[in-house]
């Protein structure tokens, strides 16, 4: 099927919208209320209007389905005029404080306004006055900046299946809020941050911790160290030379962090390897000793929040392993001061994460002081005048948490924890390594739920990978059904895994997630060691400190407990 966009014939697929076809063919039609990768029936912003042959009215391209022979014009004078008028009205009732807005310079709304040629305020509209919600340690909401596009609502309900926020009230008083409008901290929100990632304005943003980090760096008494999650270098490669691997990017990031004053930079991937050794051992222990099955992974804090706030009955199914961020935090505190002869009270641990829920987690558990998202890195560079693109120095991550196997790097993507776990579980169950290439193809892919069985020696392990919380809520009953007899389930809250996390760059889309996943597979393929238990640093850690997996020491440092945290609205 072909349609014509501005006179050019373009191939279109059944069910595609004109907006999607246009984007694919390089024509960007402005749009606020729709998202490329989520259902959006609202068509409320009307910015995406186009002229179509045979229609005297302007039509919204986000709902206009491609039909063979359809001819549309996306940027005629009439269309441009209509779009600018819409934008002028939005701007008129928007607070005029771009200069002090956290989105300043990265704001989709102001970019759109500029693109559409809004140059002066022709209207003066009533500006809303709602309190800013700073109740949550992960996300802040400023409803005055909201343009009611509804993306966050779509994502929270239809993609994540949580439904913590919705349109509330009517008319001029309409706003997006949790049920009964209290703070996000007492709502059903799990802090996945997907809403913040898609918001075109500063109405929902990560809690900005850049100033905390800058203050720590400036404190002469503080020794500030960083840990960097594997998803971050895999993301920062965008816009950089393709030949550079993830490893090189990690080293460039480490060098830049040291330039702004960090005393040491560690690789959170190390803790991912450690997580696998502990988690695979825990799984085996449960299988052999009649523990609660299926066991669910616990490395995605928004998923842990989901269990604690929505389904505390599932707590026994959660692995007791801390997330890699928290394992790393605990170990850095335990080991680094001794190694460097430092008073532990002077140590400040900063994580660089693709995730907003990690901000909540860091506040909930001990070990990590501040969490910066991938997006906040840009602000950190801004404070110190670092042009990261041109910083080519490299610094290897610091011992003792410098090493990561291919398995640990896979953690950043959906299926990665499972794949890494299978590699190690095989050894634990069968007493021998997976033969040949340890790639576990069944764990990879982007479908919502992937179920498969792995044979290790005599034993069969029934496994499932759940890609995104939305798919989890749909399939939970089935996963728990004893008939399904699953042993182990990986759940990542964000679609695609951490590479699509809530703290990731605003332009993260399906394509970007796909490319980041491919980079992870590539770095795994090229790694010298590809099994978590082969990590020499991890082995040394067991020798020197932990003894063996699930030992008393590892329980003290690497495992955790969970709490029933149902908010009022779930409890009644």
């Amino acid at each position, binding site marked *: 099927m072909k349609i014509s966009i501005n006179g050019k014939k373009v191939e279109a697929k059944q069910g595609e919208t004109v907006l999607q076809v246009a984007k694919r063919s390089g024509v960007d039609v402005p749009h606020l209320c729709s998202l490329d990768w989520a259902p959006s029936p609202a068509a409320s912003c009307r910015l995406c209007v186009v002229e179509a042959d045979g229609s005297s009215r302007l039509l919204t391209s986000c709902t206009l389905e491609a039909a063979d022979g359809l001819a549309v014009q996306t940027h005629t004078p009439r269309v441009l005029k209509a779009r600018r008028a819409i934008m002028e009205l939005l701007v008129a009732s928007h607070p005029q404080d771009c200069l002090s807005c956290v989105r300043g310079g990265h704001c989709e709304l102001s970019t759109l306004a500029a693109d559409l040629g809004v140059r002066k305020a022709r209207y003066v509209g*009533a500006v809303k006055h709602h309190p800013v919600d700073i109740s949550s340690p992960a996300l802040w909401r400023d409803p005055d900046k909201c343009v009611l596009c509804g993306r966050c609502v779509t994502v929270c*309900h239809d993609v994540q299946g*949580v*439904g*913590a*926020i*919705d*349109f*509330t*009230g*009517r*008319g*001029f*008083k309409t706003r997006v*809020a*949790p*049920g*009964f*409008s209290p703070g996000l901290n007492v*709502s*059903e929100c799990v802090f996945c941050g997907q809403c913040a990632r898609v918001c075109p304005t500063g109405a929902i943003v990560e809690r900005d911790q850049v100033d905390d980090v800058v203050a720590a760096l400036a404190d002469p008494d503080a020794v500030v160290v960083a840990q960097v999650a594997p998803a971050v270098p895999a993301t920062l490669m965008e816009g950089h030379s393709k030949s550079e691997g993830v490893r090189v990017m990690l080293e460039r990031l480490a060098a830049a962090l040291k330039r702004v004053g960090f005393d040491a930079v560690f690789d959170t991937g190390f803790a991912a390897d450690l997580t696998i050794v502990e988690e695979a051992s825990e799984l085996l222990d449960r299988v052999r000793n009649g523990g609660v099955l299926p066991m669910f992974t616990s490395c995605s804090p928004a998923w842990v929040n989901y269990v604690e706030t929505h389904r505390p009955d599932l707590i026994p199914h959660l692995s007791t392993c801390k997330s890699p961020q928290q394992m790393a935090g605990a170990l850095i505190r335990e080991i680094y001061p001794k190694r460097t002869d430092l008073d532990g009270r002077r140590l400040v641990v900063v994580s660089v994460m693709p995730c907003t829920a990690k901000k909540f987690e860091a506040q909930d558990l001990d070990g990590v002081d501040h969490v910066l998202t991938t997006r906040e890195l840009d602000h950190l560079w801004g404070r110190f005048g670092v042009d990261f693109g041109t910083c080519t120095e490299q610094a290897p991550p610091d011992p003792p948490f410098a090493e990561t196997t291919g398995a640990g790097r896979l953690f950043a993507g959906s299926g990665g924890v499972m794949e890494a776990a299978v590699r190690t579980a095989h050894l634990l169950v069968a007493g021998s390594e997976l033969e040949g290439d340890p790639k576990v193809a069944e764990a990879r892919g982007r479908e919502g739920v992937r179920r498969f069985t792995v044979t290790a020696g005599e034993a069969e392990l029934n496994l499932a990978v759940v890609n995104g919380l939305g798919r989890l809520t749909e399939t939970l009953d089935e996963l728990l059904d004893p008939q399904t007899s699953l042993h182990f389930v990986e759940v990542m809250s964000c679609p695609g895994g951490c590479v699509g996390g809530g703290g990731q760059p605003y332009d993260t889309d399906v394509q970007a997630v796909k490319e980041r996943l491919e980079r992870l597979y590539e770095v795994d393929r090229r790694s010298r060691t590809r099994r978590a238990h082969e990590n020499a640093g991890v082995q040394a850690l067991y020798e020197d400190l932990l003894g063996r997996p699930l030992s008393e020491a590892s329980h003290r440092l690497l495992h955790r407990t969970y709490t029933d945290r149902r908010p*009022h*609205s*779930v409890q*009644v």
Partner: protein
Amino acid sequence: MAAGADAIIAEREGELTREQMIPLLQEIQAAEGFLSAEAMITVADALETPVSRVYGVATFYNQFRFAPVGEHVIEVCRGTACHVKQSLALAQHLERRLHLRDDGNSADGRYTVVRVACLGACSIAPVIKLDGAFYGHLTTEKLDALLDELEADGDAAKPDAFPSAARAPEEQRDEAA
């Protein structure tokens, strides 16, 4: 727990769909006088829909209120005739004197003030209805006298069920804006 809501939902067990959210909320409000948080949570559970959605829908419609009606209900007419005769001043006076909250209830919960489009008594504008009785040709002084009398007299009439009292707090604020 919202007893009324529970009963109403139990009655329809097994035949509930999300399309029934509004009739369900209406029925609960009719039984309980307002929509409590508990009632909305019960509805959300029964319809297997997020609480935020039930709250969002309920706050969209004027007909729902979210706090129990006070002992005394005052309806202030904001129709055209009353508007011309300064009924806004009456409404604002009540707001100040009774320390009205966003939902139209006084701080002590004894009074509920609602603004209505027209009470149909334009000949005696500006007019209010206090516990079902009309009071016309009002000024802020006369209004004060009326309230003073009400406060002195513990035996004031009990409020009837006012259909026009069933309004969402949002709308009242809209008009105040």
